[in-house]
């Protein structure tokens, strides 16, 4: 998967490139709008991340250029300006997502993956697996090592999210929004508690542990490589 980043702030650009490269993407980085548009038109990217305020051509201009050339890859905007007008303008011009600085890298990564997955077909397999954990979407049942585990509806939804996005670090804000439809940062440790309770049911009595806390970033469900 190839991603184009157009960002003039040197540190931000470098860290985004490093972070996304380490997450397994191929990354092109442009420092201004002119280079960015040139790269976007000459190379084939699966996704573009544009800063709004850019020297040369601004983010809107780059997006307009990309769309004029008939390219329909998803585009995500980064901006420090918290104006509703910006959001509306971006969406009108055909942007797919919008992230306000300062943002957490885990949030950016999660959204990038969401955008890239959007085109793909949802799996028709009614079972989700990780190690010996199995989630039956049809019958709303969870079992591990053959043992039935009782989960509340929200716990089920939480586990489903973690399983669907195995190996991805999911930030708290994304979890709150996907599982509970809460699009604000609560000042309570709601997600921690919910996660603790889920782990008590799914992980505590079993090995290997599947759900892991990544401090400062979020939570991830993955099967440890040590087989």
């Amino acid at each position, binding site marked *: 998967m190839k991603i184009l980043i157009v960002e003039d702030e040197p540190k931000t650009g470098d860290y985004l490139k490093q972070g996304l490269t380490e997450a397994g993407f191929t990354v092109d980085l442009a420092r201004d709008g002119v280079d960015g548009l040139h790269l976007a038109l000459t190379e084939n990217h699966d996704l573009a991340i544009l800063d709004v305020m850019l020297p040369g051509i601004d983010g809107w201009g780059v997006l307009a250029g990309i769309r004029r050339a008939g390219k329909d890859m998803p585009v995500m905007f980064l901006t420090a300006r*918290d104006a509703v007008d910006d959001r509306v303008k971006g969406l009108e011009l055909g942007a797919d997502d919008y992230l*306000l600085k*300062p*943002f*957490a890298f885990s949030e950016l990564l999660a959204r990038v993956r969401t955008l890239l997955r959007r085109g793909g077909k949802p799996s028709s397999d009614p079972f989700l697996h990780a190690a010996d954990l199995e989630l039956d979407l049809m019958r709303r049942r969870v079992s591990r090592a053959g043992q039935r585990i009782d989960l509340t509806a*929200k716990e089920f939804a939480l586990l489903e999210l973690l399983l669907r996005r195995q190996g991805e670090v999911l930030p708290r804000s994304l979890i*709150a929004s996907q599982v*509970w*439809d*809460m*699009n*604000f*940062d*609560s*000042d*309570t*440790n*709601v997600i921690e*508690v*919910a996660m603790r*309770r889920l782990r008590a049911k799914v992980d505590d009595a079993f090995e290997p542990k599947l759900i892991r806390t990544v*401090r*400062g*970033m979020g939570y991830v469900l993955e099967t440890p490589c040590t087989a």
Partner: protein
Amino acid sequence: MHRLNGFSLTRRLTLMFVGMGTAVLLGLGWVVSNSVEKHFEALDMEVLAGKMELIAQALQRVGAASDLTQLSHQLARSLIGHHGLEVLLLDADKAVIFATANASFDPAMVAAQATQRPGQPALWQLADQTYRGMAQQIPTAALDAKGHRALVIVAAAIHIGHHQAYMRGFLQTLWLFVAGAAVLMALLGWWSVRRALQPLRAMRDQAQVVTAQQLNHRVSLQRMPVELAELAQSLNDMLARLEEAFKRLSDFSSDIAHELRTPVSNLMTQTQVALSQPRAADDYRQVLESNAEELERMARMIADMLLLAKADNGLVVPNREPVDLAAEVQALFDYYEAVAEEKGLHLRQSGSASVQADRLMLRRAVGNLLSNAIRHATPGTVVQVWLTQSESGAALSVDNTGDTIAPELLERIFDRFFRVDPARQRSSEGTGLGLAITRSIVVAHGGQIAATSHDGLTTLTMRLPHPAP
């Protein structure tokens, strides 16, 4: 001060004062001089009428033309001693029958006066003297050629030079007096207006003292006239509001500095200590993880403060849609359920209500109320949400059992960074902005928020009005 429309109040009032005073004096002068004039005329006419009567009686006795000579002597005798009185007798052909020394009036004029306005006062000019006269046709006992009684035109006039001299003097004095009075009134008016406006100047002087550093200054209401007391009170109220807003602003700035200083200094110390000597990879990871947590908190605080700043400037505009509050509360209960259970709390709601509101904002506002109630509730108690709908709008209350909040602190719990217990400051959870955000959202919807706390039961209530159609 605008020179054009800022015509001095003192000058304006003084001019009005002088103008009105002069007009009144002039009117009075006109009335007085007019009535003196009338009085003189009446006196003159009385004298003239008396003479006319005398002459008429004498003429009654004239039976033949020859008697006229005798009459002349008689008249000349009887008129002696009447200084300034002139008499002229004309026959039907306007020939002079008798005339006193100065009675050289134009016979045609006299005859016209006698026929057109008999017995009425008239002013006759002779040389440079003015006379008041009257003329009349008086019948004699003699008969003319046609057998009618012959008519004689009699004119009597009195010299009124001394009256005129008197009137001239009177008018002159009047003019002088009015002019003097006008000047005096100007001075007195200016002085009294200045004196009357003294409190206004005092107010100005006091207002000039007010600066950003001295917003606590107030205009003294003592010895302030009623008319100005209201203005001064409004000024004081305005100053109070300004001071309040200014204080909030500077409190907010210093709060931000304070709230950000601690995490920034933590980050700096931690990072610098970590860098001071080589460490194992795990140690570096720990430092970075801790930094990430701290930074995430700061980012959240910045986002919250931005929202509050926008709300303060009226930039938060709710995108209204019908919202079922009971459903929203249920969704939030699902969200907070795990946390509540950990504390052994029961979440309950009763009633129902619906409003026109921005769903996302409202969810956040109610969520903050709930998380606040859960945080401060005594374990094992109930957090209760009450919904009520009324004509004017909807109300949502959240009850929790816990410590009673002192009345003086109650109104401050919606302030930014306010914590009832300062020792809880910067606990790992919360930026101290939750309730402030709730209030901003409620205010943006045109609603109100209030808190009560009695006997360990604390209730926060938000009221949302129906939006104006």
